[in-house]
């Protein structure tokens, strides 16, 4: 018996008991009291008639006195029956109604419904704990990658309201995610559950969720958000797969922006939400940086700047944080000042600064500093730390602030600010993890490449993708990921990278995609050459449009197609297929295939495939 039914029955015990007892007393009374029939003889009611009488009396219907008018003794007893039975009926009805308003009952029903819906999920899904801004962004990312999502959120009504606009159905549970029961209801131990994503606002709760998930189902993937190092280490100790520290992520993004704006652009573009298109790179000028707020965030930024040999001027309201000030560069200065007024900014040398960093933990101070700085120098680069989710619209307006029409020149059209939005950072990382963990490896490996390399990469990528949304996929050369290819390698054949990039219907052109990286063991090869030979257990990372991905997959799955790609002769298995192939070939040529010719052959000069 499930919890809901049991709860209901237990509650109804008292009213039902009362009804049975009251009915019994009434019936027995009626049986015992003698009546008088029309001739004056005494008679006794039968059980059946007594039950009938009591029934329509208790429910206040009141047909009448049957079969003969009652004696006064009977009538006296009837009065007693009326009051006893009617009240007990109302008591029963009242109990039922209050039951359906009872919070515990409703919660039990909610949990049961939730559990049923989770079990009925058709796609593999991730459990998202915490449905604030970050949770919403994560759920959107999951749905974009065609995963299901299950949400656990403590605050009531948040889930229902915000999930109304969601594309597919998302079961949501209104409970504390750190309780193991919630995770069990969300089906953490089911086969369809691919992982648990813990993005609540509190590190301790995230830690708790990670521990519970790992204990309930050791193989489940856990992605956790953590703001503090000690929690991070704790989470790593019991095997959390991915920990996202928004501060660290932003710090490395900032480093990327300083070091190589084109690389930052690539990162932004490949991991961004589906609607983002290629934007222009950030433009950071020469000069020192002014840093407001020397807390955790500020110190990290200061470290990064110092590593790059960039001078920093720290502005703090009081002397108290001076002791943390590691002057890496003896040109660094520590100024006591407000940071939000023009005077302190002038003292910090804003006229010659490259950028300002609004890194305090108070949004009002940050925004005030930014506005003051922009007034003094409208083109200064701004790095902003957004503390509260609800202020994100304000931070987005930074670029628009003080755009004076007189100064409307090209430089203002570039991106001149970088905001640390915790949710966006986390959602981006998770999106990258979902698409292909290899993508994060690619970013990591390419951080240290120089600007020219990044520019070349951007131009290659935009050539194959254009305005469409970039699609990233990974091909792992093993029995599951590329059975045909593994077979070919097993026969000892040499397969080159460009072989699997051939168009499935025309092996003289390549598909419009770029191979970003090949991982072989612990070695990474970025932007490998087409002539590179593939080996078993390689992992390849590609970027292109979605239909190109679908075109490439058959080549690695089917040995026949691979043969076609590698040679100029197609060996069809049957006459029908060879004719079909010829027909498809003509159709494709008419509609125009997008692709690069191989070895200088032009598109119109195709060799006939001998069919």
């Amino acid at each position: 018996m499930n919890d809901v039914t049991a709860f209901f029955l237990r509650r109804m015990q008292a009213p039902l008991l009362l009804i049975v007892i009251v009915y019994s007393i009434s019936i027995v009374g009626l049986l015992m009291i003698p009546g008088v029939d029309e001739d004056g003889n005494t008679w006794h009611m039968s059980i059946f008639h007594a039950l009938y009488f009591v029934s329509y009396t208790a429910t206040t219907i009141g047909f009448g006195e049957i079969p003969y008018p009652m004696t006064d003794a009977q009538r006296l007893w009837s009065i007693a029956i009326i009051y006893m039975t009617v009240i007990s009926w109302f008591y029963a009805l009242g109990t039922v109604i209050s039951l359906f308003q009872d919070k515990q009952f409703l919660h039990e029903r909610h949990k049961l419904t939730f559990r049923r819906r989770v079990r009925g999920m058709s796609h593999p899904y991730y459990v998202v704990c915490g449905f604030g801004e970050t949770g919403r962004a994560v759920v959107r990312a999951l749905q974009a990658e065609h995963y299901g999502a299950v949400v656990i959120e403590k605050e009531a009504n948040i889930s229902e309201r915000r999930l109304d606009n969601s594309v597919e159905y998302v079961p949501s549970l209104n409970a504390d995610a750190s309780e193991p029961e919630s995770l069990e209801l969300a089906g953490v131990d089911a086969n369809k559950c691919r992982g648990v994503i813990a993005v609540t606002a509190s590190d301790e709760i995230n830690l708790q969720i990670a521990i519970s998930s790992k204990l309930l189902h050791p193989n489940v993937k856990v992605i956790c958000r953590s703001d503090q190092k000690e929690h991070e280490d704790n989470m790593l100790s019991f095997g959390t797969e991915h920990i996202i520290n928004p501060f660290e992520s932003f710090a490395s993004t900032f480093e990327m922006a300083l070091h190589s704006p084109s690389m930052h652009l690539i990162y932004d573009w490949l991991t961004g939400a589906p609607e983002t298109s290629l934007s222009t790179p950030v433009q950071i000028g020469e000069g020192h940086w002014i840093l407001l707020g020397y807390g955790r965030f500020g110190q990290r930024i200061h470290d990064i700047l110092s590593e790059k040999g960039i001078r920093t001027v720290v502005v703090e309201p009081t002397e108290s944080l001076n002791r943390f000030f590691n002057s890496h560069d003896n040109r660094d200065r520590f100024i006591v000042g407000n940071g939000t007024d023009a005077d302190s900014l002038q003292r910090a040398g804003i006229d010659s600064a490259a950028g300002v960093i609004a890194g305090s933990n108070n949004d009002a101070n940050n925004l005030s500093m930014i506005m003051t700085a922009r007034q003094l120098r409208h083109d200064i680069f701004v790095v902003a730390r957004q503390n509260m989710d609800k202020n994100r619209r304000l931070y987005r307006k930074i670029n628009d602030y003080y755009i004076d029409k007189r100064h409307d020149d090209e430089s203002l059209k570039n991106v001149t600010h970088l905001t640390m939005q915790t949710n966006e950072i986390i959602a981006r990382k998770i999106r990258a993890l979902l698409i292909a963990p290899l993508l994060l490896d690619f970013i990591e490996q390419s951080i240290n490449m120089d600007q020219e390399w990044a520019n070349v990469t951007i131009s290659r990528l935009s050539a194959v993708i254009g305005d469409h949304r970039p699609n990233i996929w990974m091909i792992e050369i093993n029995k599951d990921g590329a059975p045909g290819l593994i077979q070919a390698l097993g026969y000892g054949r040499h397969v080159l990278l460009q072989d699997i990039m051939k168009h499935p219907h025309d092996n003289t052109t390549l598909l419009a995609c770029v191979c970003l990286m090949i991982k072989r063991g612990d070695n990474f090869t970025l932007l490998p050459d087409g002539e590179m030979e593939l080996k078993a257990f390689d992992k390849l990372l590609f970027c292109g449009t979605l239909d190109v991905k679908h075109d490439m997959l058959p080549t690695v799955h089917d040995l026949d197609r691979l043969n076609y790609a590698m040679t100029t002769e197609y060996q069809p298995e049957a006459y029908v297929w060879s004719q079909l192939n010829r027909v498809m070939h003509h159709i494709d040529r008419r509609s125009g295939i997008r692709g690069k010719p191989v070895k200088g052959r032009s598109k119109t000069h195709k060799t006939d495939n001998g069919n």
Partner: protein
Amino acid sequence: MNQQKVIFSFFMILALTLNFGFFYGEISDPDHHNVYELLAVVIVNLIATVLKLGDKSQVGAMLLATSLVAVVQLVAASMIWTYVEHISGTGLTPLTMSTIVALSGGAMLANVISVILLMIEVSRFGR
């Protein structure tokens, strides 16, 4: 002394004993089976069923099941009696009487199982 347990056991055993009282006697002889006793059996079985509601344990589920079986059979017996007495004009024939008593016998078996389960549970956990 657990008052709830006393009441619970009281009604279960009362149901069984009353049922046995009604059942005993020549199966088709109406003089051996009192209609008021059948009334009492039905009432006490209903009370016992209500007391067993809402228990989520395995034992509780079985007890509830046996009570429901007993109630179903007794209600069927009462229906037949009502029909024969009031609705069709035949009155109590030996055939109908034996049917009624047979049904109450079935209910009695259900009550027996119920009581046995009760005794097992008590002997497992009680002193």
